């Protein structure tokens, strides 16, 4: 009996064959290795090349915006009846991508998933940058972005208030709350690491900058006492927040009466889709980063495997959503719903629906195989496929539902213009530019959280 207990204890302390932190690390090596990326690695060639390309694409975004402001939003493709085009497709796509960061840092924290610790920091950064990209679209779609503050309720000489019964107003609050809370959550998480950077920086300039940002963190027991509870509360607040944001985004559609939008499945289906695309983007970014900076010790195969499983799970929920849309179109007996579905699958945009099914439902089923989840190049390609698939999903929902509504007299087609495309590609440039800057100047893996993964030597007992 005693022997039996012994073996069980020893296997649990080993944490299985695939550890979330490579063996042999100490507090010092973890700190040195992660802090070295911003402090000592400097300007490697892959960084300079990658950053330059991203910054050039970002420049294209700035030029597009300049043109857009000069000419008005008529340079974009939306028309009647397709009043929402790339602007909303990309908005929803970016917001969705952001969700993985919050899920990893908040929900997985509450679920005590230790593997989240080494990917949470840059997943959160990804959230912030994705939300920044998302903000571009509704802001510039207003046509006069300098008046965007009209969206907020404030006492004004027009004696008007925004309409609180409109999902578009809910969206303003949901997205700006999400951006704000993600920003403070990310910053609070950074404070102890910024102190590590301050203490390890060699140049006076870096010491001062990191010192200001670290706010005077000393790692005192009093600090940790408040800090731990604050992180837990922020995680607790972010968890329902992340679920609510994409729910509210889906209300933009579901509260409308357009066939193909007016569905109760939308909130859960949007949230699952958001997490699906978000994890795909985390993998798209993590795979090159761990290779370039030699971070395989911290982002192990266990992480890749777990993220693939999350994608598989949320992908199946999304597939269920597609199936339900088809089923409800038939089961409702509603003429317009049935027409919408027929038009979506066999109409002029049928290609987009079937590519979506192939990209989002069929190809990712490879992830059932452990061999596929362990094959890094394959996982990288799959993550790109899912990113494209999730973009297509938003295209299908928005364009195919709008372009043929109730009256054939008002039917039309939507073609994105080159400014739609340059704005979309440009926002990817902005996203990557911010990611490159983040990896260069801040610790992209949470140092203090990874330190807690190191087994405490003489804790006594087997627990």
């Amino acid at each position, binding site marked *: 009996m005693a022997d039996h207990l012994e073996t069980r204890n020893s296997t649990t302390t080993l944490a299985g064959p695939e550890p979330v932190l490579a063996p042999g690390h100490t507090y010092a090596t973890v700190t040195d290795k992660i802090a070295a990326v911003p402090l000592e690695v400097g300007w490697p060639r892959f960084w300079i090349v990658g950053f330059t390309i991203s910054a050039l694409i970002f420049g294209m975004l700035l030029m597009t915006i300049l043109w857009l402001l000069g000419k008005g939003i008529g340079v974009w493709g939306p028309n009647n009846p397709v009043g929402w085009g790339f602007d909303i497709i990309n908005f929803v796509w970016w917001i969705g991508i952001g969700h993985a960061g919050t899920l990893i840092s908040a929900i997985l924290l509450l679920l005590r998933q230790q593997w989240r610790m080494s990917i949470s920091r840059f997943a959160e950064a990804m959230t912030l940058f994705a939300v920044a990209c998302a903000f571009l679209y509704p802001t510039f779609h207003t046509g006069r972005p300098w008046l965007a503050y009209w969206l907020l*309720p404030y006492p004004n000489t027009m004696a008007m*208030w925004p309409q609180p019964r409109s999902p578009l107003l809910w969206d303003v609050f*949901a997205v700006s709350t999400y951006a*704000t809370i993600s920003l403070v959550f990310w910053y609070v998480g950074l404070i102890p690491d910024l102190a590590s950077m301050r203490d390890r920086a060699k140049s006076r300039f870096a010491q001062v900058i990191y010192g200001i940002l670290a*706010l005077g963190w000393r790692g005192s*027991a009093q600090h*940790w006492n408040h*800090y731990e509870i*604050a992180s837990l509360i922020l995680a607790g*607040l972010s968890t329902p927040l992340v679920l609510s944001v994409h729910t509210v985004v889906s209300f933009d559609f579901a509260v409308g009466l357009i066939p193909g939008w007016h569905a109760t499945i939308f909130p859960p289906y949007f949230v699952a889709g958001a997490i699906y695309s978000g994890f795909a983007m985390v993998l798209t970014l993590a795979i090159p980063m761990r290779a370039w900076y030699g971070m395989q010790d911290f982002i192990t195969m266990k992480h890749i495997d777990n993220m693939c499983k999350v994608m598989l799970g949320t992908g199946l929920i999304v597939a269920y959503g597609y199936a339900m849309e088809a089923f409800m179109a038939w089961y409702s007996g509603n003429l317009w719903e049935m027409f919408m579905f027929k038009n979506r699958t066999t109409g002029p945009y049928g290609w987009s629906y079937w590519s979506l099914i192939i990209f989002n439902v069929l190809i990712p089923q490879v992830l059932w195989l452990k061999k596929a989840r362990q094959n890094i190049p394959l996982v990288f390609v799959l993550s790109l496929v899912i990113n494209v698939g999730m973009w297509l999903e938003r295209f299908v929902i928005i364009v195919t539902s709008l372009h043929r509504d109730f009256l054939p007299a008002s039917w039309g087609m939507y073609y994105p213009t080159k400014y739609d495309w340059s704005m979309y590609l440009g926002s990817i440039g902005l996203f990557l530019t911010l990611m490159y800057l983040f990896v260069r100047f801040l610790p992209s893996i949470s140092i203090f959280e990874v330190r807690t993964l190191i087994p405490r030597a003489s804790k006594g007992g087997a627990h």
Partner: protein
Amino acid sequence: MPRKPLYGLMAEFSTPEELVQAAHRTHEEGYRKFDAFSPIPIEELHHAMHLKDSPLPKFVITAGILGCLGMFGFLYWISAIDYPLNVGGRPLYSWPSFIPVTYEITVLSAGLTTVASLLLLCGFPMPYHPVFNVPRFKLASRDKFFLCIEAEDPKFDLQRTKEFLASLRPYEVSEVEI
């Protein structure tokens, strides 16, 4: 030359267990004004140092409730009283449609209060603190553990406190200048 005034005495340890043990002993010895510094959060310190529970959650729930009631009341006021707008004959007090915004503002006020209280309770931003004067204190954010007994403690006596800290078998004991 007169001695510079001291902030306290600091002992350095190399494992979290030694720090917890030291904090425990320090409290037992009767010291009350002391602090422990570590690169990782150590739950056991809470008991060893007899720290009070953080009041932070109380601030957060208060702000959350105020934000929730405030926003709901505000939405009621703008839609039913200050700017009544007939939308397809729907009631002016259409409370279900107020829920999403009320919810977001509840989370926002609670979240911002969490951060504000954290900064307030920790006394941030505080770019200067005497403990930074100890050269090896830089390692408190890397892999070393420190315990500092403040000179303000009524039991503090340079010689005796130094001896006490030495009895805890630290790596070294240093004087913290103000």
